[in-house]
Each structure stands twice: as structure tokens, then as C-alpha cells.
């Protein structure tokens, strides 16, 4: 039993934290997050050079990490800086889908993703999915020279800037069937693909995709036809871990800011931190954040567990914990700050927004609690 990170990971975390502290100040981040581009290509290149992207991939896939704790270390740091660059969408989600399901030819693109020269996007959610993994309406039909895709994809991370999309589509079965889902690699230039981008409330941009008879050659099929669900689950599982770690980083900053405020802000002539009601609420907050940290550790440790149920339960348990605790931290931090905590100029407000919005990505608290229960029934059975 050992809760120390390896030397390599500590060094990675240090350099990443230093880089963010120097290059990603709140003002810089605010500018980037509101920019029309949705993120900073310069910063993105530097992440690549720092090896941050590569740290998210296994050595067999051209990276030099890819373990649960690599993802956790990187995303906790990204959460501290409220980083909006496409590490989740391009590296973790699309990257893992390609790594998990792709053939050698298809995996070739991983090098460019790791190098930051290619940005991939994960196009799985659909307008009516509401977090349900197998709920795929987009259809792919075989054609004389490959495949034709028709359908719509929702809230695709940095979709406007992607060169390449991993698209899930139904090649068989009815909506909701676990079997019959296939994955495809779709170029952003593919005729019939319409990408409409828009900003988000917590920074960065997303896009709505419509696929109107998008024609693909046979080589576009990623993995075995009809068996895409497993790769989707692996990719989303890694994404869930990434989001949980990101939330933990954001909680740390919100906690520090609130503690500092309680220590320095006076009201009725005394420091508000001297009010016992606030002291006890702050104690609760710290306690919960420690539980969130443990939840992330459990999820990271289980990420590559051979037993699917062990792995997925730990991931859902973490997302449930993060969903509940993230909202608590966001709401209590604002409340203890009072009016100032509601203002755009205060970084805290943006950490609070991010904490709440993380619950809206890859399954919210309720979704993962029900999933945790369902997986438990499978264990029992």
C-alpha cells in the first residue's frame, strides 16, 4: 500500500502546474475561454511539447503513460487552471477509442494527436441520449463503396476545431440495443458533415453535428462492426476519471479561495471565519473534499482492472461522489463568499461553474448512481 506518486508523475505534475501558473493566469484563461477559437493553439502546442498529451497514452500507443494515475495527475492540474484546451475530447475520449478499437493504419493518427498537430473529437452523444451509452440513433448503412452515415451528434467538445471525428452509429439493432453499435473515423472535411459551434457557460466551445449522407470508405470502420460498445465504454470510463480528477483540482482551488476569504474578510467587526456556523460548514467541506480525493484514487486504481464490474463500479462511484461534492463545494463556496462570489471578476465563480458543469458531462450523479446499482446487481447475480 502506497499513496505516493512515482518520481515521473511528480515531475510531470510539477512542470504542468508550473506551466499553468506562468502561462495560464486567470486573465489569460478568461480571454482564451471566451475566444472564438474556443482554446489557444499556442498553449495547445506547448502542452504537446511538455508531453502532457503523451502522458495520457500508453507506450504501446506511442505515449509514455496512459495509466489511471497519469490521467488523474494531469487532469487534477488542468482543473486547478480551468484549462479549456481539448485534452479530454481529443486525447482521452477520441484518442482512447482509436487506441482501443483501431487497426495499425488507423492508430497511425495517434502520433499526430499526441503531437498536437491533429485534433480529434468524440462524437457519440445525441440530442436525446441524456447520458445513455447505448442510445444511438445515428445510422450507418453499407453502400457500394463503404458506408453512408445519417444522424445528429450533440455537444461535441471543440467540434469546430477537430480534424477528425470518432462517430458512433448503429449498423444493426434498435435504439438502446447494446449490440449493433459501430465506430467510424470521419474527416472534418467529409461532404455532408455540418458542424455548428457555440460557446459554453463554463468556458470553451462545443459543436452540434449533423451527418447528412456522409459517405465513408470501408477503412473508416473503427474496430469490429456492431461491437463498438466496449471501446465506447473504455473511452468514456477514462473520460469519467479525467473529469473527476479535474473536479478535484477545481475543488482544491475553490477550497483555498474560500478558506482565505474566511480568514481575511471582516463583517460586523470580526473575521467571518470566526463564525462557528461557517467553521462547521467549512469543516464539512474539507471532509467531503477528502472523500472526493479518495474516490478519484479508487477510480484511477481500478481503471485498468481486468474485471469490468470492479472497474466500472469504481468509475461510477467516483462520478457520483464528484457530482454530489462538486455541487456542494460550488454552492457553499459562493454562499460563504456572499455577493462577491457571484461576480465574473472573481476566479472562484468560474471554478464553481466548472464544478457544476462537470456533472453534466459523461453522466450526472443520478445516472451513475443508477448505473452503480445496476452493476452491483450483476455482481450479486
Amino acid at each position, binding site marked *: 500500500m502506497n499513496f505516493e506518486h512515482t518520481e515521473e508523475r511528480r515531475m510531470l505534475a510539477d512542470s504542468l502546474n508550473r506551466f499553468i501558473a506562468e502561462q495560464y493566469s486567470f486573465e489569460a484563461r478568461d480571454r482564451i475561454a471566451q475566444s472564438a477559437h474556443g482554446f489557444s493553439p499556442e498553449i495547445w502546442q506547448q502542452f504537446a511539447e511538455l508531453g502532457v498529451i503523451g502522458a495520457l497514452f500508453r507506450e504501446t500507443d506511442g505515449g509514455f503513460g496512459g495509466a489511471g494515475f497519469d490521467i488523474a495527475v494531469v487532469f487534477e492540474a488542468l482543473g486547478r487552471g480551468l484549462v479549456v484546451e481539448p485534452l479530454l475530447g481529443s486525447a482521452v475520449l477520441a484518442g482512447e477509442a482509436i487506441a482501443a478499437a483501431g487497426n495499425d493504419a488507423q492508430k497511425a493518427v495517434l502520433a499526430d494527436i499526441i503531437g498536437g498537430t491533429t485534433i480529434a473529437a468524440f462524437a457519440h*452523444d445525441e*440530442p*436525446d*441520449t*441524456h*447520458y*445513455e451509452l447505448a*442510445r444511438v440513433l445515428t445510422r450507418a448503412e453499407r453502400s457500394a463503396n463503404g458506408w453512408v452515415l445519417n444522424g445528429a451528434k*450533440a*455537444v461535441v467538445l471543440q467540434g469546430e476545431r477537430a480534424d477528425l471525428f470518432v462517430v458512433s452509429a448503429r449498423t444493426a439493432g434498435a*435504439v*438502446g440495443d447494446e449490440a449493433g453499435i459501430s465506430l467510424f473515423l470521419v474527416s472534418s472535411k467529409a461532404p455532408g458533415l455540418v458542424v*455548428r459551434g*457555440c*460557446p*459554453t*457557460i*463554463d468556458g470553451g466551445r*462545443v459543436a*452540434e453535428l449533423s451527418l447528412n449522407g456522409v459517405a465513408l470508405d470501408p477503412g473508416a470502420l473503427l474496430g469490429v462492426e456492431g461491437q463498438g460498445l466496449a471501446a465506447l465504454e473504455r473511452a468514456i470510463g477514462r473520460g469519467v476519471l479525467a473529469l473527476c480528477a479535474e473536479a478535484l483540482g477545481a475543488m482544491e482551488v475553490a477550497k483555498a479561495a474560500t478558506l482565505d476569504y474566511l480568514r481575511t*474578510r*471582516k*463583517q*460586523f467587526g470580526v473575521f467571518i471565519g470566526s*463564525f462557528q*456556523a*461557517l467553521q462547521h460548514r467549512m469543516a464539512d467541506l474539507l471532509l467531503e473534499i477528502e472523500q472526493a480525493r479518495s474516490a478519484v484514487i479508487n477510480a484511477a486504481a481500478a481503471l485498468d482492472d481486468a474485471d469490468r464490474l470492479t472497474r466500472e463500479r469504481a468509475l461510477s462511484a467516483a462520478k457520483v461522489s464528484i457530482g454530489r461534492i462538486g*455541487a456542494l463545494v460550488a*454552492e457553499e463556496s*459562493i*454562499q460563504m463568499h*456572499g*455577493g462577491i*462570489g*457571484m*461576480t*465574473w*471578476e472573481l476566479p472562484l*465563480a*468560474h471554478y*464553481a*461553474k466548472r464544478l*457544476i*458543469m462537470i*456533472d*453534466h*458531462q459523461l453522466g*450526472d450523479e*443520478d445516472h451513475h*448512481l*443508477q448505473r452503480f446499482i445496476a452493476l452491483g446487481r450483476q455482481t450479486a447475480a
Partner: protein
Amino acid sequence: MDLNFTPEEEIFRNEVRTFLADKLPARLSDKVANGKHLSKADMQEWHAILNTRGWLANHWPVAYGGPGWSAVEKFIFEHECCLASAPRIVPFGVNMLGPVLIKFGNETQKRHWLPRILDGSDWWCQGYSETGAGSDLAAVSTTALRGHDAQGDHYIVNGQKAWTTLGQHANMIFCLVRTNREAKKQEGISFLLIDMTTPGVEVRPVITLDGVHEVNEVFFTDVRVPAENLVGEEDKGWTCAKYLLTYERTNIAGVGLSVAALQRLKRIAAQQMRNGRPLAEDPSFAARMARVEIDLENMKTTNLRMIAAVVGGGVPGAESSMLKIRGTQIRQEISSLNRRAMGPYARPFITEALEDDYTGMQVGPEAAASAAALYFNNRKLSIFGGSNEIQKNIISKMILGL
């Protein structure tokens, strides 16, 4: 014991409903229902409609143009307006300054200012709290020095006010200012009316986390205010402030707003799908909705009990603090469920989509456009108007006396 309204009150309710059906412009109710931003013109339009009917200043005595409603009738009116998605009455002039002038103002002041509130010639905002003071209202550092010159008696005002809601639309502001620095905290404060077009008044916008410009900071640099703009006695402004803070809190729970918001939420939950069935049938979400619906039913009765007590001559004390706390908790919970109901579509956010001239793309269900922003904006409910922590202090002081 009888929870029903009297036949007379039912007739009144129908009168209000008919009025809203006839006179409330659909353009306005649509904006309110969809959480879009109201322009100053929108607010003025609705005020004018109400004023024509004589219902704008419904808290005022008949002598000053009020309709002479009972607390129950006021509750019914408020409730029906919410259900019809009518714009809120902007409270600063009508519900805040009006009562203070009626109670503490002199005849000249009443004759001059009250009609201008009704016909909208003046648009008021509130200069109460100050940066760094927060809920500690009596911590007023904005100063007003009494002086005399050729143009007569006056005050020179210096300082700054925070959290001035809709100050960007206002031409007048009523302020708590310190006229006596020797006196201790609550004393030495005066209640002053200031023309915002006077040189030295500067309004700076404060953008909230939802990207909205609703509140402002107002700066005063050597602002000259004629002495006749003092309301009540000099150094006795705290009396006005306290009166205003405790005045008419029978609607503090915002029952109508929550009932209307819950109706909308239920419609949304019936449309949104989860696991192939309406979100309303998802056990977790259904439980969350049911719990807040039950809390709301309970609070509504608590509110009516308080109103009945007031009608019976009682003075609401800890009760209004309880209603403030539970009322804001419920409103925040409903807007939180509204956000949850949007799933992944809660994140996309196009600020312009909340303005009425917007014609751009719509992302996800219509309700998604404002869901997250409204949730974040509603965090203010438990902070402003006396934070819920302050309310709990008030309750425990009243019941524990410690």
C-alpha cells in the same frame, strides 16, 4: 380552519385573471416564461399597464393611489401574476421608496415624488449596501456633509454603493449616507434622495457569473444634493431603513414564482427523455421533483398562515425569516432540477439568445438556453435581501434570546 379563499376573494382572483388575460402582452410573458432578459422598455410597459388599472402601487394606502387590497388580495394578485408569467414589478420605487416616503416624507416630498413613481417619470434604484459591508447594512461609510451656499442648503456626498440592481436604468437613487461620524453605527445615518444625473455620480456595471449585467457599483464624488432631498430627520435614517426592511414581507417566500417554475419544470420533465422514457418517470428525478413539490405545498400553507396572522393584526417576526430561507431554498432547488433536466445541453450557452432580437442557432431544447444561467443567477437568492445566515441569526435570537 378553512384553507379556501372566500367567495369575494375568488371573485377578485377571477378579476385579476381576466385582467392578465386581456392586458398582459404575450411578448412579455413569453420572455419571462423562457427566462429571457427584459429591457427597461419592457418593464416600463408593464408598469404603465398596471398603473392604468390602478394596481401598480398595490401596497400603498388608497389615499396615495393604492387599490386598498388586503394581504390576501395582494397574495392572490402576486400569485396570479406569476402563474401568468407577468414581469415582476420593479420594487425600488413602488415597493421600497414609496412606503418610506408615505411614512416619513413631508407633504412636499410626497406630492412631488409619489406621482412620478406611478407614471414612471422617475426610475429608482437602491443605494443601501456597500462593498465590504455585505449583510452588515449599518456599516455605512458613504458620507454626506451638510453645507450652505448661494443655491441654499445642501449635502456633499462622497463614497460608493454596491450591488445596485438595475442601477443602469435609473435616474434616481435613494441612499443611506453617514451624516454624523461621531455617532455610533446605527445612529448618524440619513436617508437621502439623489439625482443620478448630478455631476460626480458614476455607475459602473458589475457582471455576474452568468455573464449578465444586472447589478452595479455607484460612485459619488463631491455630489451636491439639495437638503430638501433628506427624508425624515437627519441622523435618523436607520429608522427608514429598518422600516423598509421589515415592510410587507408577506410575499417574501415567492410562492407564486416557485409554483410557476415547478409547472414549467414538470412540462420539461415530461418532454425530456431518459432511458427511453420521460425524465418525469425516472425514479431519481421523480423523487427530486416530488420532494420539492411537497416542500412547496407545505411552504404555501405556512405563508398563508402568516398572512392570516397579519390580517389578524399579528406582526411577522421569525416567520418571515423562515419563509425567506425556505422560499429561496425551493427556488434554488427548482432551478437546479431545471438545469439537471437539460443533461449535456446545460453547458452550451449563447448570451445573445436571451435577448429578444436574437435569431441565431438554438442548441438543444428551448429551455436549455437559460437553464444553467438561471441556476447560477439564482445563487443570489440566498445571499441578497439578508443572507440566509443572517435570517438564521434572527430566528435563533428571537427563539433562544441568546
